[in-house]
C-alpha cells in the first residue's frame, strides 16, 4: 500500500483508495443511493396498489411504454420493480450499509487497527460490489427487462421468465464482494487488535461485525452454487431445477427434465435466512454503542449479548426451512424447523432484554442518535413478535405469503435495521467529518420517519390478516381483497410521507458535511477507541498505537472524576 510522504493523487485518495475510511464512505454513499432507488421503485408500486389503473404522478410520464403504458404501471413492470426492490434493498442497500460502510469505517478504529488486514482486497470488494450493482440496475435496459420473479428467484418461473440472467450474474458479483469482505473482517478482528484489546474487551459493534462476517462467509456459497446451477439452466439449458413434463403456455418445455424444484428453495433459504441476521446484527451492534454512550452507564450483560449474538448466528443456519412449510416439503421435517425457529427467538429476546435493562439506572440523553436507537427497541419488538405466528406451522398456513409477511419483515428491516443504521450515521458523523449533524433537522427526520414507517407497515399486518396475498399487481382483481383497499391507500400516503421526511436527512447530511457545527474528537464523551483518534482520522488512524486497559463501556466509574473512562486511559483519576 501507499506509504507516507508520497502525495496521493485524487484517484488514489478518493476513488481507488485503500484506506478503510474512504472505502467505508464510498460504501455509505453508494448504498444510500441504492436505497433511494429501491424506495422510488416501491413508491411507484405502492401507487399502483392504492389506486390501481390510474396514471402515476410524476413518474408516469418518465417510465418507458413497456413499463407503464400511458403512465399506468403494467404487470410486467410491477413484477420487475418488485423483484428489483427486494434485491436492491437487501443486497445493495442494507447489507453494504451495515457491513461495508459501518463495518469498514468504524470496526478498525474501534479495535485500534491502522487499517483492515488486507487494504487492497478491501478496495477490490467495493469495486466488485459497485459493478455488480450497476449491472443489476442495467438489467432494466436489457431486452425483456429486469428480473421479474421476485427477489427469491424461484425456478421454474425464474428459468422461463426473461431478465433473470443478468440478475444471476450480478448476484455472483455481489456474493464475491461479500466473501472478500468477510474474510478481511475476520482476519482484521483476529490479528490486528491494538495491544491490550482482548476479544472480551471489544465493543459490541465489533463483535456484531465479527459474527456477521462468519455468517456471510459460510452462508453465501450455497447461494452462489444455486445461482451457478440456475444460470446454467438458463444459459446451457441444463435441468437442475426443471422437472419432467413441464408444459408452459400449452407447449412442452424444451428441457431434459429430472430436476428438483424444491432443491433451489433449500439452497436459497440456506443463505437467505442467515442473511436476515446479517441485516439485523450490525444494527444491533450500532444501537448497543449508542445506548451505552447515551445512558452513561455500562451496558447490561455484555457477555450475555455476545453469547446471544453467537448463538443467533449458529442457529440461523438451522432454521431456514420455516420459509418452506407450505412448499411441498415433508410435513414431518417441518416440525424440526418449527422447534429450531422457536429456539432462535430466545437469544433475540435476550438481546432486547439486555438493551432495555441497560436503561435502568441510567441518565438518558435524548440525542438524535439515541432516539433512533430507542425506537429500534419497540419496533424490532413488533417485528419479532409478528414473526411468531409465521414461525408456527399451523398459523403459517393462513399467513404465509400474505401481506402479514411483508409487514413482519419490514418491521424488522426498516424500523429495525434501517433506523439503527440512521442512528449510526448521526452517531459517527462527527467522527467522519469532524462536524455534527443538525439536531433539529435530525429530530424532524426521526419523528417523521418513525410515524410514516408505522403508517406504511401497520396496514400491511391488517390486510395480511384479511388474507391478502403478496406480490399482487392489482389487489382489487380479487374479491376478498376489496375490503382492505383503504389500508393500501393509507400505506401509500405514508410511503410518500416517508419519502418527504428523508429530504431533511439528505439536506442535513450534505449541509453538515461542510457547514455543520465543528466538534472535537469526542463529542459524545464516549469510551471506545474510535473516539480516541482525531476527527476525521488521518491515514493510519492513530498517531501512536493505542494501548487498551479495560472493557469498552466504563461509564460513571466510581473511581473516576468524569463520567466516562476511555479504554485507552491507563488509570482512573480519583474524583476531586
Amino acid at each position, binding site marked *: 500500500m501507499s506509504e507516507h510522504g508520497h502525495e496521493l493523487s485524487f484517484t488514489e485518495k478518493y476513488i481507488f483508495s485503500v484506506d478503510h475510511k474512504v472505502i467505508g464512505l464510498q460504501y455509505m454513499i453508494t448504498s444510500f443511493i441504492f436505497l433511494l432507488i429501491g424506495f422510488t421503485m416501491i413508491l411507484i408500486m405502492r401507487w399502483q396498489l392504492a389506486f390501481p389503473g390510474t396514471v402515476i404522478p410524476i413518474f408516469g410520464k418518465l417510465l418507458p411504454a413497456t413499463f407503464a403504458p400511458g403512465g399506468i404501471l403494467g*404487470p*410486467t413492470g410491477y*413484477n420487475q420493480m*418488485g423483484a428489483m426492490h427486494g434485491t436492491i434493498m437487501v443486497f445493495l442497500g442494507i447489507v453494504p450499509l451495515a457491513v461495508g460502510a459501518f463495518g469498514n469505517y468504524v470496526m478498525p478504529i474501534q479495535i485500534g487497527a491502522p487499517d483492515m488486514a488486507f487494504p487492497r482486497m478491501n478496495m477490490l470488494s467495493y469495486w466488485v460490489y459497485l459493478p455488480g450493482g450497476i449491472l443489476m440496475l442495467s438489467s432494466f435496459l436489457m431486452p425483456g427487462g429486469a428480473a421479474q420473479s421476485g427477489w427469491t428467484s424461484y425456478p421454474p*418461473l425464474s428459468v*422461463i*421468465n426473461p431478465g433473470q440472467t443478468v440478475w444471476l450474474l450480478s448476484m455472483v458479483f455481489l456474493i464475491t464482494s461479500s466473501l472478500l469482505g468477510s474474510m478481511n473482517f475476520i482476519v482484521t478482528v483476529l490479528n490486528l487488535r491494538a495491544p491490550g484489546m482482548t476479544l472480551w474487551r471489544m465493543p459490541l459493534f465489533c463483535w456484531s461485525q465479527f459474527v456477521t462476517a462468519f455468517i456471510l462467509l459460510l452462508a453465501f456459497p450455497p447461494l452462489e452454487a444455486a445461482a451457478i446451477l440456475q444460470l446454467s439452466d438458463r444459459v446451457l439449458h441444463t435441468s437442475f431445477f426443471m*422437472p419432467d*413434463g*413441464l*408444459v408452459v*403456455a*400449452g407447449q*412442452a418445455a424444451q428441457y431434459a427434465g429430472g*430436476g428438483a*424444484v424444491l432443491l433451489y428453495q433449500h439452497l436459497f433459504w440456506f443463505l437467505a435466512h442467515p442473511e436476515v441476521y446479517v441485516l439485523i446484527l450490525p444494527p444491533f451492534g450500532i444501537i448497543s454503542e449508542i445506548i451505552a454512550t447515551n445512558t452513561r*452507564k455500562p451496558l*447490561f*450483560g455484555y457477555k*450475555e449479548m455476545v453469547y446471544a449474538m453467537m448463538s443467533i448466528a449458529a442457529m440461523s443456519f438451522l432454521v431456514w426451512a420455516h420459509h418452506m412449510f*407450505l*412448499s*411441498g416439503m415433508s*410435513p*414431518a421435517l417441518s416440525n424440526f424447523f418449527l*422447534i429450531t425457529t*422457536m429456539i432462535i*427467538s430466545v437469544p433475540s429476546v*435476550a438481546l432486547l*432484554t439486555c438493551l*432495555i435493562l441497560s*436503561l435502568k*439506572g*441510567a*441518565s*438518558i440523553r*435524548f440525542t438524535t442518535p439515541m432516539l433512533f436507537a430507542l425506537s429500534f*427497541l*419497540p419496533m424490532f*419488538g413488533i417485528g419479532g*413478535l*409478528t414473526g411468531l*405466528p409465521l414461525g*408456527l*406451522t*399451523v*398459523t403459517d*398456513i*393462513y*399467513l404465509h405469503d*400474505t401481506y402479514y409477511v411483508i409487514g413482519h419483515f419490514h418491521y424488522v428491516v426498516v424500523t429495525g435495521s434501517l433506523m439503527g443504521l440512521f442512528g449510526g450515521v448521526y452517531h459517527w458523523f462527527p467522527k467522519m467529518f469532524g462536524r455534527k449533524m443538525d439536531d433539529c433537522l435530525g429530530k424532524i427526520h426521526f419523528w417523521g420517519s418513525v410515524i410514516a414507517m408505522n403508517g406504511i407497515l401497520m396496514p400491511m399486518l391488517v390486510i395480511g*390478516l*384479511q388474507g391478502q*396475498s403478496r406480490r399482487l399487481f*392489482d*389487489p382489487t382483481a380479487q*374479491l*376478498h381483497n*376489496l375490503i382492505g383497499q383503504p389500508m393500501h391507500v393509507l400505506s401509500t400516503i405514508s410511503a410518500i410521507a416517508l419519502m418527504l421526511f428523508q429530504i431533511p436527512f439528505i439536506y442535513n447530511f450534505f449541509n453538515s458535511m461542510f457547514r455543520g457545527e465543528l466538534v472535537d474528537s469526542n463529542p459524545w464523551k464516549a469510551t471506545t477507541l474510535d473516539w480516541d483518534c482525531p476527527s476525521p482520522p488521518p491515514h493510519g488512524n492513530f498517531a501512536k498505537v493505542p494501548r487498551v486497559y479495560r472493557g469498552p463501556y466504563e461509564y*460513571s466509574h466510581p473511581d473516576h472524576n468524569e463520567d466516562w473512562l476511555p479504554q485507552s486511559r491507563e488509570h482512573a483519576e480519583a474524583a476531586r
Partner: protein
Amino acid sequence: MGNYSWLLPVQASSFAARIDLGLWIIHAAMILIFVLWTIFFAYLLVAYRQRDGHKAERIHIDHWKSLAPDAAVLFFELSVVALYVIPTWSSLKMSLPDEKDSIVVNIVAEQFNWNVHYPGPDGKFGKRSAALIDFSNPLGIDPTDPAGADDFVTVNDMHFPVGKPVLARLSSKDVIHSFFIPAFRIKQDAVPGMVVPLWFEPTLEGDYEVTCAQLCGVGHAIMRADVKVQSRTDYDRWFASMAPVKKAGPSGATEEW
C-alpha cells in the same frame, strides 16, 4: 361480500376455527407482551431521563433474573408448540381422510388458471398425457382410456358439497403456484414435478374465492377461481349435469368448453 370482514374471513371449513384459535391466542399474547413491555420501557425513559441532580448509577441486576423473560418466552412457545401446533399440524398435514368417504379431485394449476379434474360418475380418473394437451383438453386426458371417458374438467370454477371432506391432489403444469382459500384457511404450494395431497372439509354453503399465493408470472393477480359450496342435492345435480353423456368421442372432456 359478507364473507370477508376487517379481520379474518368467515370460517367455512372444518378446521378454520382451530387455526383461528391459534391466531387469536398468539395475537393476544403478542399484544399483552408488547403492552407490558412498552409500559416498562416508557417508565424507564421517564424515570431515568437526564436531568439536574440525577446521575447515572451502576445498578447491579442479577443476571439470572434477566434470563427470566427468555425462559418465559421459551416456555410459552414450547407449550404452544406441544399443545397446539404439532397436534394440529399432524391432523391437517400428516393424515388424510379416507378416499372412499371423500370427494377426490385433481387440482392442476397453470399460468393463470386452476383446472379441476373430477373423476366423473365412475369415480375413476382417466390417464393423462402431456402430449395430448391442447386447447380443448387442458389436462391431456387420454380419450382411449375408458376410465377417463366420463371425466370432466372445470376451469376456475369448483363445486363441493357441504360437510364432506375433499381430498385434492395438487400439481402444476408450469411454475410454482399456491392454492389458497382464505375462508377455508387452507394454503398449499402447487409444485411442478410433484403431487401434493391436501384436504379440507367445507362446512358452510356459499361462494368463496381461490387465489394464487405464490408469484407465478404476469397474471398472478388475476389467477383466481370460484368455489361454490353447495348442499348435497345441489352438488349432485351439478355433478350429473357436468359429466359427459356420451362415452365415445374424440376427446372425453370437450363438452364444457
